[in-house]
């Protein structure tokens, strides 16, 4: 088991190293950021000074060397545009994204699992068929389009909910959150629905497939034969059995929702990390792009690492296979 952990850990580190090289050289190969930082009418001296200050006159591998040494010390560089440490910049935006992602994924899971169990329990009722039809739409309709329609309906036509921004925030332990205030909450609703829709569709499908399969097993037959009521069977046995794949997917989806938040945040001008990265790509703010990509890569590699370990714990075949 220890050998397996070490092997997977080395693999994860290797992947991170390769990612850092690809991201760094890729990002630094495009465009000339100096044109953005200094005004076009600047003198030659100011230009040269700025290039030197930002370290852009060094060869690429040298810049990479500095980048990597700084990275290992927890310093991801300074943003060209905001002129502040990138980590601070991203850290300041992270709560907004986390808030949005957690609210969407959690509500999508609860609602999706309930609807999915119903659809799997009574597959032939018209309610179930409607649920499944809606879930198909959730899969195929692009999420940015749904966001637009939500704004058009609830913000422009009905005027019930705000179309963008974060609204009032409350400071808790020095971090601003929107959800405790009514105004902030009203700002979250639309982007959260937008972000949750795809996940909802997925959770419905997952829960439905699991329910249909498990309702046919002997466990359920015996529970029925023992005279348990249907609701006890659903709560006590079915829910427990379908929760394993759902928890796995929940973990995986948390990561990919963070990525998807890029689209939703742009539509609803939600001041999170996703909007920051899109803005940074637009103005070629390289340190921010590099830092974001490295952090996301790190996030995914860590999630995969943990999942690999968990699977190995559950399933001995996995660790046997790795050694052989």
């Amino acid at each position, binding site marked *: 088991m220890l050998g397996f952990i070490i092997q997977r850990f080395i693999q994860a580190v290797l992947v991170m190293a390769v990612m850092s090289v690809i991201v760094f050289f890729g*990002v630094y190969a495009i465009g000339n950021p100096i044109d953005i930082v200094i005004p076009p009418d600047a003198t030659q001296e100011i230009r040269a000074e700025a290039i030197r200050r930002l370290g852009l006159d060094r060869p690429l591998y040298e810049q990479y060397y500095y980048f990597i040494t700084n990275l290992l010390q927890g310093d991801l560089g300074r943003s060209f545009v905001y002129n502040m440490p990138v980590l601070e910049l991203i850290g300041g935006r992270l709560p907004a994204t986390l808030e949005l992602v957690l609210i969407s994924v959690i509500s999508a899971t609860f609602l999706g699992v309930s609807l999915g169990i119903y659809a799997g329990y009574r597959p032939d009722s018209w309610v179930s068929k409607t649920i499944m039809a809606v879930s198909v739409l959730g899969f195929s309709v692009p999420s*940015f*389009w749904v966001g637009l329609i939500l704004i058009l309906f609830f913000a422009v036509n009905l005027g019930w909910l705000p179309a963008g921004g974060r609204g009032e925030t409350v400071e808790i332990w020095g971090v601003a959150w929107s959800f405790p205030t009514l105004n902030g909450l009203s700002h979250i609703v639309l982007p959260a629905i937008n972000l949750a829709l795809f996940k909802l569709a997925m959770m419905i499908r997952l829960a439905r497939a699991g329910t249909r399969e498990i309702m046919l097993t002997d466990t359920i037959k015996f529970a029925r034969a023992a005279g348990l009521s249907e609701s006890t069977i659903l709560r006590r046995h079915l829910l427990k059995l379908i929760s394993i794949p759902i928890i796995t997917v929940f973990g995986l989806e948390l990561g990919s929702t963070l990525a998807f938040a890029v689209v939703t945040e742009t539509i609803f001008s939600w001041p999170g990390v996703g909007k920051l990265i*899109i803005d940074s790509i637009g103005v070629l703010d390289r340190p921010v792009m590099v830092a974001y990509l490295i952090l*996301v890569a790190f996030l*995914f590699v860590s999630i995969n690492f943990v999942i690999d370990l968990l699977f190995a714990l559950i399933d001995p075949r996995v660790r046997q296979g790795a050694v052989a």
Partner: protein
Amino acid sequence: MIGKSTPLTRFWAEYRENKIAVLALVVVVLMILLALFAALISPQNPYDLANLSLIDARRPPGFVGSGGYTHVLGTDPQGRDLLSAIFYGLRISIQIGLAAGFVSLTIGTTLGILAAYLGGRIESLIMRLVDLQLSFPAILLALVIVALLGQGKTQLIGALVAAQYAYFARTAYGAAKAERGKDYIEAALAIPLSGRLVVMRHLLPNCTPPLIVVATVQIANSISLEATLSFLGLGLPVTEPSLGMLISNGFPYMMSGRYWISVYPGVALIILIVAINIVGDQVRDQFNPRLRR
């Protein structure tokens, strides 16, 4: 059924039983035709700047512009007739979806089948890479690559391919791995036929059904992904708007109630994507031996 019964006619006979799938197929064909003949049926060439007039910009559906004809779906902020822009946008979206789909299909299938056929170190190297990539969300990969490569059609297709080939590789690998172990492949190799012949003549044809299914789904995904990237301002140049770009152009005007600029291109996009997905679903069901009667 009277007449010849080839696999294709049998396939079609079964396909025809699902009315919704037939409707979806008709819609897909119709949209492809609209895209192909966009230049003939559009009232205006939306890319010809000499044709556009800013006086006509942002007019509601039904407005009769300076060109003397009715803008059935209104006009966009550049004064383009929206109906024409949608036809041309469809053309770009379908073009990119097909191009990205076919390149990913080729690359992915080659990698997947090679991995399954050769085995050993190459197999684990390729599949490890593919699995790693599949754990990343496609949208993020595409976003990164467009950011790295810059804007343009080729770059966009490159980004879509890089984000999607892995799905084909996984599918091809799965199918080829299962076929590889069967006796007819062993027999063919024992004759001995050359490895290339076995792969091309025997292995590849037997892996096609699942690949066709993935290809339909991925073409729809490419179109959707391209629209998303264009909406985020990372797709194609503004001069030749795809559907996503049209939607993006109209977004700022939505708040002031000029809904048509974003809504109609979006409707076209969704009809296209949903129709392709329904066709793909039906084809998958027909290929699935477990649902066979």
